[in-house]
């Protein structure tokens, strides 16, 4: 007999009454947590999305209602979504489809994504709050994708990096916040605070606010999530596989959104050509691919816990006809 005692003997009943430096060390990954991918995933869907050439009236206002009319006559594609079930942590599955449309005016490319979501989650201040979001993903460089020329539809891989555009619901709120970022006190009205980030507030402490390293790690590290006045709602990123997502130094993408009748409509846009080697470049008359993911904040979606499409979607830019 082994001599033993149970750590739960006393039981839960009793208890139940109630900054940055040097080398990465433990983190040499033994098992990536990603299971194999099927041939089907390396085969792009058949339907090609035509990114229509549309002559836009300038200057255009960045609002879904004004830009939306340009998409009226454009045929989009329906993208099937499912839970992310390969990389740890798995998750998602609450959003089944999204509709994507594309237009360009010879200078700028616009993508409109819409999907149903019963709750609007645009604040991530409390620890239990998670944001709604959407991301478009493009292969970097000129590629063809097939079972012979494999290109992972899930964040790319070491040899085949991707460019991602990630719109976040809370960044829309930050954009119009007086202090450049949604205040903690908007989640907790009337809370006591010693230091306000709002320059017109009585508790604004200029000296403190201007010494970011004292203020907050995220701000002093220049993390785009933490910086007030980031001035955009879409993050421009790269990845070469699971866990490698990295914010670009140069941000080129912006967008706008509307939440109406339980449906998000998000428009993301960027100049066709940016000259940045980390960006996908669009040429009228040529084709590439896109893939996408949607996060439902209400379901605690974040990171790999998301609704994804498991196949690339081809897209073709219509030639310019002046």
């Amino acid at each position, binding site marked *: 007999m*082994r*001599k*033993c*005692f*149970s*750590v*739960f*003997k*006393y039981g*839960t009943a*009793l*208890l139940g*009454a*109630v*900054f940055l*430096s*040097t*080398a*990465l*060390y*433990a*983190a*040499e*990954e*033994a*098992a990536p*947590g990603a299971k194999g991918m099927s041939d089907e995933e390396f085969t792009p869907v058949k339907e090609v999305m035509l990114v229509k050439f549309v002559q836009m009236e300038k200057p255009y206002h960045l609002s879904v209602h004004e830009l939306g009319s340009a998409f009226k006559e454009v045929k989009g594609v329906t993208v099937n979504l499912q839970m992310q079930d390969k*990389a*740890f*942590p*798995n*998750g998602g599955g609450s959003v089944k489809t999204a509709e994507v449309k594309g237009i360009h005016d010879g200078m700028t490319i616009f993508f409109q994504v819409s999907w149903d979501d019963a709750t609007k989650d645009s604040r*991530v201040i*409390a*620890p*239990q709050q998670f944001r709604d979001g959407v991301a478009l993903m493009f292969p970097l460089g000129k590629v063809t994708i097939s079972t012979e020329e494999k290109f992972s539809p899930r964040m790319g891989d070491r040899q085949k990096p991707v460019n991602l555009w990630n719109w976040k619901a809370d960044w829309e709120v930050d954009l119009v916040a007086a202090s450049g*970022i949604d205040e*903690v006190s908007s*989640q907790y009205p009337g*809370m*006591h*605070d*010693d230091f*306000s*980030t709002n320059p017109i507030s009585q508790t604004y402490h200029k000296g403190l606010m201007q010494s970011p390293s*004292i203020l*907050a*790690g*995220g*701000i002093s*590290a220049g*993390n785009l*999530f*933490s910086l007030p006045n980031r001035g955009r709602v879409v993050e421009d990123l790269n990845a070469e596989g*699971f*866990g490698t*997502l990295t914010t670009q130094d140069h941000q080129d993408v912006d967008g706008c959104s509307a939440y109406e009748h339980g449906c998000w409509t998000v428009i993301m846009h960027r100049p066709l050509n940016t000259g940045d080697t980390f960006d996908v470049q669009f040429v009228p008359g040529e084709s590439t691919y896109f893939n996408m993911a949607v996060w439902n904040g209400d379901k*605690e979606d*974040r*990171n790999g816990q998301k609704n994804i499409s498991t196949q690339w979607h081809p897209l073709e830019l219509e030639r310019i006809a002046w």
Partner: protein
Amino acid sequence: MTLVHNWHLGRRMEYPYFESRPKHQFAAVFNINRCIACQTCTMACKSTWTFNKGQEFMWWNNVETKPYGGYPQSWDVKTLKLIDNGENTWYTNEKDEKTSPYGVYEGDTIFEAAKKKNLNQWAVGYVPEDKEWRSPNFGEDVAKSSKPDESSSLPVHNRWFFYIQRICNHCTYPGCLAACPRKAIYKRKEDGIVLIDQKRCRGYRKCVEQCPYKKPMYRGLTRVSEKCIACYPRIEGRDPISEGRPMETRCMTACVGQIRLQGFLDDNPKNPITWLIKNQKIALPLYPQFGTEPNVYYIPPRWAPREYLRQMFGPGVDEAIEKFMVPSRELLAVMSLFRMSQTIVFEYRIEEGPKVFETMIHGKKFEMYNDTIIGLGEDGKEVVRTTVEEPIHIRPDKHYNSI
């Protein structure tokens, strides 16, 4: 998953990364018996690192009362439930001084429970809501009483509570690090301190979810997570007052009850931290069954029910209390080092003194020698010298309040 050795559990266990131990590991010994819950440590930390906006609820150091207290509320009960498979058992006759000093734990760790439950993530866990973080003093000084009419006397009190002092454990197998899908959390090779890279973090809160001790915290202002950084500038000797020598953290040096000693766990048998933890086994890990191999070690409170303590500190509780109640000559000397210096002691030397006292404690003979203990720094130079008998200083009667 790979198999790594966890000496707290006396066995190999599954972990997503390979075993890789630092040169020496940041570690501390907290003597629960002496804590007065003055929260000076808590305020020392707060006023250094978490005084700012969005950190209102953050207490990287907190002191809670057991059995009813918890910050966040009921954190340990909730996590214990997640790993409870009905057979969380220790086999205490399967001991090996080096690899399994407490015996062998055969229950599930947070990593193994996640695999068994097919959770498709590295560890079990949960994200506490704001209301759970709100009352750090919940249950403070509330006693548990099994027989309310009886008075309490040692060895075990019928009416009891004790304080537990909590910081990040800078675990050998951190749950937070395993959980992070971005690898934004890293453990430093030089001292084993676990940090969140504030630039790579995207506020996913997987670390908040999968740290069983609930020590990473989400900051609404910056939308990323933060955690105890073990005052690493002091550890590196970069605090101006440290004069370039490794210095203990703010919470340690502020300790009024003199319950805390911090240094590094290594292989040197004359390192006071290593001696107390590995050689004497008088200081024990908190909830070793979680499987992260935490590096803050506790001398358990001698008056609390043993079964409760075993659940909390594993099967080493009885031996630790026995040794603490009737301390050996060397233990008395080493315990005298607590809070005598801010500079980290890497090694000690004892100069023998005369016998000054003897008595019987719980049927055992106790002798006290007024030995001198000398603490040496990283460079081998003396940083502190003290005696077992506290020096007495009598105030001259010229003061108004002199007796």
